[in-house]
């Protein structure tokens, strides 16, 4: 655990050293802030016009922003280590593949966690505006975090199979577009057994399930299995070099 934490700390630090963290936090807060409080999604749907004390607009915007930002966060994680050869340095120390992968994963999840933490003032503001369903809001934060974690797993795997960061970004972004965006809008048109598989892989259904305020184990299992699977694949891909 010490080793995982050491790697995670170093990684988080390099997010902040290389400005990635500030760009991510800045853009995340500007986008979500602007759309949640001022503009809304489509004419007059900002928080004041909706007449409902909830964070629907925020979570919706955050979802979209994360689709773009997570690939940017994960692309360099392992690709850069492979390119510069520092991965050899890490793995010849008392570090296992698993510890390395978990450390990097943890750093990214914490980074997203920090971004979400910065939006807590939104929540606090909302509570002063009216009756808030606290359960729903906590669940939608949880849903965003789980969705991000699963997406980070995909990004980490993409970063482990190439030493080119751009390639890693594109793979992750492309998979993100399919599972987080395209499937969301094609759900209704898909049928048959293939259709039901694709519908099951639709991140948005599971995300929405949790964000509505229901902690259905089915949805939790979905995200945890994606995380487990992608991290396992990443370890395999690291082990393949040998």
């Amino acid at each position: 655990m010490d080793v995982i934490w050491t790697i995670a700390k170093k990684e988080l630090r390099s997010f902040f050293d290389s400005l990635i963290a500030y760009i991510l936090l800045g853009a995340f807060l500007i986008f979500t802030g602007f759309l949640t409080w001022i503009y809304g999604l489509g004419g007059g749907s900002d928080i004041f016009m909706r007449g409902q004390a909830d964070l629907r607009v925020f979570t919706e915007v955050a979802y979209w922003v994360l689709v773009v930002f997570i690939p940017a966060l994960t692309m360099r994680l392992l690709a850069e280590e492979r390119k510069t050869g520092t991965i050899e340095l890490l793995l010849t120390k008392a570090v296992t593949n698993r510890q390395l992968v978990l450390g990097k994963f943890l750093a990214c999840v914490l980074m997203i966690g920090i971004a979400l933490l910065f939006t807590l003032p939104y929540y606090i503001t909302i509570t002063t505006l009216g009756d808030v369903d606290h359960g729903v809001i906590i669940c939608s934060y949880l849903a965003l975090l789980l969705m991000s974690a699963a997406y980070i797993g995909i990004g980490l795997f993409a970063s482990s199979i190439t030493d080119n960061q751009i390639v890693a970004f594109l793979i992750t972004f492309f998979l993100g577009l399919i599972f987080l965006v395209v499937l969301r809008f094609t759900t209704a048109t898909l049928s048959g057994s293939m259709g039901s598989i694709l519908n099951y892989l639709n991140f948005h259904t599971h995300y929405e399930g949790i964000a509505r305020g229901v902690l259905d184990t089915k949805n939790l299992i979905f995200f945890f299995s994606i995380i487990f699977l992608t991290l396992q694949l990443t370890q395999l891909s690291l082990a393949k070099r040998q």
Partner: protein
Amino acid sequence: MDIRIENLTKRYGPQTAVNNISFEVKPGEILGFLGPNGAGKTTTMKMITSYVNIDEGNIFIGGKSIATDAASLKKHIGYLPEHNPLYLEMAIMDYLGFCASLQGVSKSEIPARTREMIRVCGLNQEKHKRIGELSKGYRQRVGLAQAMIHDPEILILDEPTSGLDPNQIVEIRELIKTLGRQKTVVLSTHILPEVEATCDRILIINKGNIVADGTANTLRKQAKGQEVLQVTIEDGDPQEIYSKLQSLYTSQLVDLVPEQPHQFLIESVTEMSSKREVFKLCVQNNWVLSELTPLETKLEDIFRDLTLN
């Protein structure tokens, strides 16, 4: 801890990088690993540090197999990879602290160990810089510092002096020599005087095979069984000296040195020395022996002989 390598083989596709090699390195020994590019030096070192898997054979460190106990053994190994990869955006102190903590150095000891390495590797003036701001020589020192930060019993150094200036090379060699008294050191290099200066033992590897193993002296003997003397004999007729030298029972071949009428090269019969006979001959004839130098085969020649076929 000792390193024992048994019948080690590594293949990359159809290419055999390391072919059934076996050797041992004892504690307190500095082994120089020599060979042309692509001979298998780096691959062997990567297998010792368990960065690449072993195809056949085994490596034992302190009696434990690297194939099964890699996780616990890695703590005892300090490794400087080829090309010395580093996190350029990190500050030196942070980087060394990071490496120490990965190697399981306890939190309370990290500052002391870091300071010690900064001192030993001569990084004191640069210690607050980021690694990316350092010159190549200083980066190499950082590479050495991270390899030794946890005071490992085994040091694997892949070209430790590359990129250093002559003064730094001498310093680093001294450092390795001092460390080598208590540790087991394997270092690879292209620089032949370096192995002579630092290593107790030399291992020459070519196309994945060990072609020579021994001290610099034994290698010389192996390479050239005959003694070659360069002598200068004055106060005599060069022709007469020449014929008398040739008639010595220990000498096999005598050569004149061009433009030096009194200088001769004597190649002795295998496993015999002509030194005494030459001296006696001079005494008998009242000649002045003003030079008698045994010519050593250069390590370069041995290296070329062994690796160019």
